[in-house]
C-alpha cells in the first residue's frame, strides 16, 4: 500500500533518519518500535508531510508521492492520530469530527448533515454515542476513538497512530484494539507506534524496528521473539561476546543512599534499592519502565506517595529537590533543554547555579573565583566553549551536558543521579562522559552514582551493579560477575503474563 525507501533526513548537526524504509500493507497492523530518539517521530512527520525528506522515495499504491504539509497527506488518504488527543473538549463530538471541513448548504453550516457525518464516521468503529454532547463528557478512550473517527471521516488508506495508548488504562486499550482489528478487516493499512511490548504482540501483524535513525529490520510479529525484539531495539548484536561487568567497587561498603518502598501512583510501583559509596548503579529498562520516575522520586523532583529515602542512615522524605541537594544528592535530568540548562545564561552561571542555590543569597565566591571555578571545569571536562561567558544555549548538546555535569560536580555531591546523560551527544563525547562517570565513582571522590541509559551497552559498560526495571517495578538485580547482556535483556523482555522473573 504505502512504501518508503532510502529515506534520509538531517537537521543541523543531527542525522535524524538515514536510509529508512517502511512497507505498509492493506489489512495489516504494523508496529513501529524503537527507543527514544530512534527516529520514529521524525519518520511519522515525514509520512504526514510535516517534514520533507532530504532523499528517498515514497509511493502510495505504486504512485510516487511527496506530501507537502499535513493537508496534502490527508488528501492522499494518510491520516494521523497523535499521542495527545488533539480535540476541543468544550465542543460537541460532532463538531470535533467535522471541524475544519463542515458540510455546508447555501454558505451556512448544515448542522443536520454534521450530525449525520459524525454518526457515520463513528459507526465504522461500532461506536454509537450522542454526537451532540460535548466531548469532555466522554472518557479518554472514547475521545481517542473520536479522534480516529475524525481521521477516518473520508475514505482513508493509511492510518497512523502515534502512541495512542500511552494515556489509556488496560480496558481502554482493549477497546481500542478491538476497533483497530475491525478497521484492519476493512482493508486499512495501520501504523501503530508504541513502546509497549505486550501491546505490540497483542495487535501487530508486522513489526519494523528502528534504532539510531535507521531501520533495523522488518519482521512478522509471529517470527520475532520478545527477546530478539528488545535485542534489536537496544542494539545488542545477538552473536556478540556478552559484555561483563568489571567492577572495582567495594561489594560490602556502607550504603550511602537507600530507598524503601518508594512509590508514586501511576509512575512507580514500590521500589527498594540501595547504593554504596564508590559504586555505579545502572538502571536498565525500556522507555516507560520507571527508570526516570525512580530517579525523580529519589531526588524529590516528584513527591512519593509512599516510602522513604534513607541517606547517611537517616530516613528522609523530600519536599523539594532543595532538601535532597542539601543532603548531598545531585540529579542530571534527561530533559536537558527543559529541566537542565538555563539557556540564556552563561556557561559560568549555569555551572555555578546549584552550588550558589545551596548557599542561598550570600555569594559563595568572588567573580574571580567564579571564573576560576568555571574555567577549571571547562578544562577538566573538556567543555568546548568560546569562553565562560558564552550563553550555554550556543554550545552543542554534548558540551551542554558536560556543563550540567559540572554544575553538579561543583556541589561535591555524595550521590549523583544521571538520567540519560549520553542522549543526543556524539560517540566520542559519550565515551568521555562514561569514563568520567567511572572515574568519579572509583577515584578518590568515591561518589555513589546512579546511571540511567536506554543504551544497554552503556549501562553495562559503566555500572558495577545493574537494576532492571520493567513495567514500573524492579525486575531483577545483577551484580558484577553474574551479569551479561543476555540475562539483562531477558529480564527486560520477560513476558509479564508468564511467571514473574526472579
Amino acid at each position, binding site marked *: 500500500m504505502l512504501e518508503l525507501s532510502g529515506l534520509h533526513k538531517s537537521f543541523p548537526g543531527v542525522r535524524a533518519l538515514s536510509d529508512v524504509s517502511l512497507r505498509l500493507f492493506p489489512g495489516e497492523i504494523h508496529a513501529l518500535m524503537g527507543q527514544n530518539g530512534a527516529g520514529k517521530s521524525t519518520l511519522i512527520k515525514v509520512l504526514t508531510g510535516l517534514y520533507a525528506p532530504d532523499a528517498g522515495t515514497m509511493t502510495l499504491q505504486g504512485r510516487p508521492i511527496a506530501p507537502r504539509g499535513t493537508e496534502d497527506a490527508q488528501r492522499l488518504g494518510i491520516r494521523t492520530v497523535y499521542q495527545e488527543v488533539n480535540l476541543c473538549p468544550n465542543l460537541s463530538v460532532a463538531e470535533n469530527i467535522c471541524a475544519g471541513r463542515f458540510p455546508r448548504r447555501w454558505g451556512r453550516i448544515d448542522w443536520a448533515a454534521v450530525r449525520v457525518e459524525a454518526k457515520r464516521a463513528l459507526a465504522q468503529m461500532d461506536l454509537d454515542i450522542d454526537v451532540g454532547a460535548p466531548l469532555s463528557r466522554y472518557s479518554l478512550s472514547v475521545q481517542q476513538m473520536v479522534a480516529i473517527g475524525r481521521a477516518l471521516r473520508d475514505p482513508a488508506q493509511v492510518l497512523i497512530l502515534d502512541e495512542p495508548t500511552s494515556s489509556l488504562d488496560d480496558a481502554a486499550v482493549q477497546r481500542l484494539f478491538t476497533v483497530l482489528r475491525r478497521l484492519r478487516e476493512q482493508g486499512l493499512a495501520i501504523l501503530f507506534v508504541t513502546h509497549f511490548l505486550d501491546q505490540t504482540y497483542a495487535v501487530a501483524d508486522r513489526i519494523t524496528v528502528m534504532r539510531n535513525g535507521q531501520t533495523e529490520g522488518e519482521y512478522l510479529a509471529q517470527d520475532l521473539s520478545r527477546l530478539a525484539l528488545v535485542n534489536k531495539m537496544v542494539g545488542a548484536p545477538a552473536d556478540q561476546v556478552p559484555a561483563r561487568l568489571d567492577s572495582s567497587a567495594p561489594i560490602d561498603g556502607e550504603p550511602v543512599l537507600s530507598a524503601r518502598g518508594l512509590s508514586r501512583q501511576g509512575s512507580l510501583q514500590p521500589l527498594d534499592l540501595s547504593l554504596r559509596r564508590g559504586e555505579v548503579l545502572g538502571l536498565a529498562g525500556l522507555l516507560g519502565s520507571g527508570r526516570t520516575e525512580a530517579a525523580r522520586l529519589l531526588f524529590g523532583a516528584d513527591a512519593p506517595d509512599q516510602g522513604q529515602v534513607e541517606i547517611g542512615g537517616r530516613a528522609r522524605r523530600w519536599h523539594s529537590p532543595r532538601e535532597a541537594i*542539601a543532603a548531598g544528592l545531585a540529579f542530571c535530568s534527561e530533559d536537558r533543554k527543559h529541566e537542565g*540548562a*538555563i539557556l*540564556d*545564561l552563561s556557561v559560568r*552561571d549555569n555551572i555555578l547555579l546549584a552550588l550558589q542555590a545551596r548557599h542561598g*543569597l550570600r555569594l559563595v565566591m568572588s567573580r574571580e573565583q567564579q571564573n576560576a571555578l568555571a574555567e577549571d571545569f571547562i578544562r577538566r571536562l573538556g567543555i568546548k566553549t568560546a569562553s565562560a561567558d558564552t550563553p550555554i544555549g550556543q554550545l552543542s548538546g554534548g558540551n551542554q551536558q558536560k556543563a550540567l555535569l559540572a*554544575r553538579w560536580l561543583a556541589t561535591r555531591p555524595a550521590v549523583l543521579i544521571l538520567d540519560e546523560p549520553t542522549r543526543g551527544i556524539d560517540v566520542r563525547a559519550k565515551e568521555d562522559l562514561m569514563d568520567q562517570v567511572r572515574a568519579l565513582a572509583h577515584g578518590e571522590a568515591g561518589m555513589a552514582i546512579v546511571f540511567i541509559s536506554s543504551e544497554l551497552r552503556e549501562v553495562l559498560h559503566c555500572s558495577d551493579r545493574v537494576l532492571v526495571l520493567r513495567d514500573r517495578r524492579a525486575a531483577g538485580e545483577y551484580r558484577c560477575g553474574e551479569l551479561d547482556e543476555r540475562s539483562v535483556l531477558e529480564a527486560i523482555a520477560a513476558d509479564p503474563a508468564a511467571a514473574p522473573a526472579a
Partner: protein
Amino acid sequence: MSTASAPQRAWNHPLARPLGALALLLALAALGVPGFLHLEIKDGHLYGNLVDILHRAAPLMLAALGMTLVIATRGIDVSVGAVVAIAGAVACQLVGTQGLALALSAALGAALLCGLWNGLLVAGLGLQPIIATLILMVAGRGLAQLLTDGQILTVYEPASFFWLGTGHLLGLPVSLFVVAAVAGGTALLMRRTALGLFIQSVGINPVAARLAGVRTAAIVCFVYLYCSLGAGLAGLMIASNIRSADANNAGLLLELDAILAVTLGGGQLSGGRFNLAGSLIGALIIQTLTSAIYALGVPPQVTMVVKALVVFAVCISQSPSWARHARRPA
C-alpha cells in the same frame, strides 16, 4: 559577531537604543523649543526642564525598577497604581495625628502587605500573574477610597511631609536622591548577592531552576514584595508632592507606564535577562516625551497620538524580526 566594527558593537550594547532614543527626543525638543535644555540656578536650586523631567519621572522610575524584576520572572504586576493610592491614603490619614515616622512606616507596611498578597497568589497558589495582581488593582483602589471616605484627603502639616515630594537637597530635588538610592541599592543587591542570578534563572527556566535547588517560590514572592514597596514609595512621593491623597487618581495607570518603561528599556516580557538602567531610561523617555509635547505646545487632543507614535517607533527599533528585515538589504 566578531567581525562587527566598533560602532556596530556599541549599537548592539543593550543600553544603546534606549539611550539613543532619549538623546534623539531631547535633541528634537531642543530644536523645537529653544532653551529646552537650559539649566539655571535660582535660590540655590537647579532649575530647568531636565531637572523637572527627572523629578516628575521619579515615581515612574521607582515603579519601573520593581516591574523590571517582576517581568524578569515572567510575571507582571498591574496593581502598582492601586498600591500607590493605598500608600498615599494611609500616609495622609495618619500623618496629621500620629506623626511622620509612623505614617511613613505604616504606608510602606501597607505596600509590603499588598506585595505579600500578590506574591502568595502567584507563587503560592500558582495564579496567572496578570489575574492575581488584577485582583489587587481593582480592590486596592477601592480600599484606598474607603480609607479616604472617597474624598481627597488634604494634608496641611507637618511641613516635613512635603519634603519628600517638593524638597531640595544640595540644590536638587529630594526625589532624585530617593530614586538614586533605591536604584543603587537594587543594583548592589543584584551584584553582591545571588539574587540576580536566581531571578534570571527562574525567569528563563523555572523548572530547571527548581531542580537546581533554587527557592523559586521565595524568589517570585520577593519580586512582588519589592515591586509593591517601590510602588508604596512612589505613592508617598506623589502624596507629598500634591499634599493630599487622591484615591481616585493617584498613580492611575502607573503600572502600564512602568511596563512600557521596562519594554522601552529593552526588557523582554517573556522574562529572563533584565536591565535596571534600561528601565530607568525607559521611564525618562516617557517623561521627556510628555514634557516635550507640552513645551512644544502640541494641542492636548493630539498628545496621546504623538506619544503612541514615538513609543511605537522605539518598540519597533528593538524588535528582533524588524532588525533582521532592516539588515537583509544591506
